[in-house]
């Protein structure tokens, strides 16, 4: 596939790195200085603006299959995509960072209608949604919602006193309708078997129906489901912070604090948010956090535009006694480090966005639902093709490192066991690590077993 990437920043680099081996890439950036980084990859690099038609023509836009605009400027991205599709590019993906362009559904439609943009990706919004899901599932460190909310995915870090620790998975009494789809132990993520034993410090990923997951949450974190009002502190009232605050505000039983250092931005937040208390000050200002008793928060979310300050704010929060701390990481390399020093959840907005784009390109007919543990495992959705024989799961030649988490059949959701059958037309939610994802896909596209 011939792909043009406009913008050689973090997103552009991550995309190029993931796609360079398989595809024919051309990267455009106005800064010559970023060219060095791309020199190590097998890509063509052109210096200049993505909004110049002559440059796009030099990048052979007329034969190009996909144009991805991911500069830091929304307007540039929109113009580049528009120009690209005018000049004959088949498909365009536009990254945006502000709400203006995607505020309403009409906004999205007009983007595709007037500008020829096929897909808009707003990483900050995806991040904010992820943070909200994690907050709304107390005790979890990652959360996903699939099949219109019928299926939920939760990731927990196991403490020494967790009821799941010490026994083999086959011996656990999990609520009916819940499966453990992945276990993260040490540095490795594996798909568990009945004999797998869970240890303290492991992270487990569970999938199940909505009702079953509620029962599971009561089991794993009884104190969080007691119905008490939960206190959430958000440090940094930027795009992500505001979005998370807006979402949480509509949830009952949440008391919200937002710490923002910029006076004008603070006033804007106070005007926009109805019930949240806006505090003007630095998220790393110990005296402020102490006098406002931030330590009594159940969750602290730090979404400043700076990894170091986020880390500091989280560590202070943790020291003051906050229940769990969530932060954003801009540099993907810091992800591991953050979790090592005790941050409960570290999320990378760009990482998730890049993974979803890469999967779109390489994933064929399946769609990516979630990326677990920095890409070590994925949750993908597959449709069982017509003509595929209806067989019991235990007879299916599944790869070792893959598990079917749920079957969506019409309006029904089945959390399968060995004797359950799959039928043509079923949608399967599969959790798989690395190469196994490819094998599962191959299994269902060829139709052989």
């Amino acid at each position: 596939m011939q792909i043009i990437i406009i913008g050689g920043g973090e997103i552009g680099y991550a995309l190029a790195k993931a796609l360079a081996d398989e595809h024919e890439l051309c990267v455009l950036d106005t800064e010559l200085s970023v060219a060095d980084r791309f020199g190590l990859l097998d890509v063509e690099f052109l210096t200049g603006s993505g909004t110049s038609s002559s440059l796009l023509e030099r990048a052979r836009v007329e034969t190009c299959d996909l144009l991805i605009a991911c500069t830091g400027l929304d307007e540039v991205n929109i113009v580049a995509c528009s120009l690209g599709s005018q000049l004959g590019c088949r498909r365009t993906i536009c990254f945006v960072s502000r709400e203006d362009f995607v505020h309403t559904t009409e906004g999205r439609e007009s983007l595709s209608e007037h500008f020829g943009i096929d897909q808009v990706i707003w990483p900050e919004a995806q991040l904010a949604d992820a943070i909200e899901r994690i907050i709304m599932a107390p005790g979890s460190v990652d959360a996903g919602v699939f099949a219109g909310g019928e299926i939920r995915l939760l990731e927990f870090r196991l403490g020494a006193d967790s009821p799941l620790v010490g026994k083999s998975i086959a011996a656990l009494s999990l609520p009916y309708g819940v499966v453990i789809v992945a276990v993260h132990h040490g540095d490795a993520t594996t798909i568990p078997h009945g004999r797998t034993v869970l240890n303290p410090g492991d992270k487990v990923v569970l999938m199940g129906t909505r009702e079953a997951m509620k029962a599971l949450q009561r089991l794993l974190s009884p104190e969080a489901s007691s119905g008490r009002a939960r206190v959430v502190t958000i440090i940094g009232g930027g795009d992500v912070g505001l979005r998370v605050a807006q979402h949480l505000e509509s949830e009952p039983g949440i008391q919200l604090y937002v710490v923002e250092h910029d006076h004008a931005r603070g006033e804007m937040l106070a005007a926009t948010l109805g019930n949240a208390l806006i505090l003007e000050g630095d998220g790393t200002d110990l005296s402020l956090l102490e006098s406002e008793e931030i330590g009594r928060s159940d969750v602290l979310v730090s979404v400043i535009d700076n990894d170091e300050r986020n880390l500091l704010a989280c560590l202070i929060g943790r020291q003051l006694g906050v229940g769990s701390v969530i932060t954003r990481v801009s540099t993907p390399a810091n992800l591991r480090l953050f979790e090592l020093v005790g941050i409960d959840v570290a999320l990378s907005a760009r990482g998730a966005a890049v993974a979803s784009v890469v999967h779109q390109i390489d994933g064929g007919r399946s769609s990516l639902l979630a990326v677990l543990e920095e890409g070590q495992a994925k949750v993908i959705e597959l449709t069982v093709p017509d003509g595929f024989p209806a067989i019991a799961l235990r007879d299916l030649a599944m790869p070792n490192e893959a598990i079917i988490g749920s079957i969506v059949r019409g309006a029904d959701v089945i959390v399968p066991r060995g004797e359950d059958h799959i039928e043509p037309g079923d949608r399967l939610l599969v959790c798989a690590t690395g190469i196994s994802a490819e094998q599962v896909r191959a299994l269902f596209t060829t139709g052989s077993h």
Partner: protein
Amino acid sequence: MRLSLIFKVTGYFLRFFGLMFLWPMAMAAYYREWADLGGFALAGLLAAAIGQAMWLSHPEREPELRRIEALAVVAGTWLVVALLGSVPYLWVGLSPVDAVFESMSGFTTTGATIFTDFSVFGRGLLFWRSLTQWIGGMGVITLFVAVLPRLAMGVGRLFFTEAPGPTDQKLTPHIRQTALVLWRLYAGLTLVEFLALSVAGMPYYDSLCHAMTTLAAGGFSPHALSIAGYENAAVEWIICVFMFLAGANFALQYRALLGRPGVLVRDEEFRIYTAIVLVAALFLSGFVWRAGTEMTEAVRHGLFQTLSILTTTGYASVDFQPWSDQALMILLTLMFIGGCAGSAAGGPKVIRHVLIGRYTLTELRRTLHPRGVLPVKISGRVVPDDVMRTVLVFFLVYVLMTALCVIAVVLLGADLITGITATMATLGNVGPGLGLVGPMANYGHLHPVSKVVLTGAMWIGRLEVLTVLALLRPEVWRLAHWRPVARR
């Protein structure tokens, strides 16, 4: 401050104001009250002549009024209009103090009267009395802005200085268009009420006078016993409806009429205003009912008197003077609340009470969260600091003015209840007070100096206190000059 320019703009308005006297002349001619015609003719001619003289005082066309000049034009226009409006009263033999009091009470839509015997006055004069309220209700300046050809002299400033309460809602991009829209709505509602009252059995002349003074939240009635004199329950219910509308924001009603009734529910001031009416009427009816009035009558009088006092209209459907002290306390409280911003009502206005309440709560919260960003909000929007400050100062000055006037009136010989309620009723543009200035009594017996003080209170109250007081600052007058001197 360029005095000649202020004169010019005021004169411009006055020339037009002279035409207003044609209406009572027509009415007097219709009822063959030939003797009264002279008063209106004299007043009209005076207005035209003085207006023309003032217009000529500044030869060249100046581009724009400055803020303080706009204030001076508004305050000055109201004063001169009230003085000229008193000429017909002088003509029929009232003393100058009484005539100006009655005229000012009309234009400021107060409704306080010095008339004792209504039978000696002609229908033309009583019509003029109602007309002054109708003009003053929507605002003298608003009328001029709406009707007169375009003024290139800082019209916007004039418009908002006069508007009651902190409001800056422009309905259309053009000020003149906005003024016109508001006057049309106002006139339309007046017409509807006139028709409704006529159908309910009130004579046409009385219907017209009452329709004009209801929408203005004024309260003058051609009947000595006010609404109680008609003994017609349907009339009272109709007037209740229109008093409620007169006390609500006209711009809001206009937008609701355009097919968006949702704006009424979303507007916090309107919601609170409605709630105040319902709660106060409930309690008032209860107290009246317990004192032995029949149930439906108690409810009707309770609601009518609640609306009459809250919207600062000042009609009486019954003599409430003998009501229990509990009931009177409610009326006194309502007097201190007033209607909505942007309505015809006077008083401190609902929105100012709400803002001050919220500000107080916010300050309490600030002691708990010294670093919190805690804005005061109304209808989901943040109230800017400078608006909040103006509201606070308004309140302080309003209370201070009340105290000073009460002191003056009581020292000049009125009893305490009379002095307090007369001040509140005039400064809030309500009309009747309690005691010797009660609903069936009048202000005629007060000391002449008291009348002058209360005339000033009405003027200041209608122009929302700060507008007038700003003009009393010495620096305004130190810099005042007749005409800019060209430098060579």
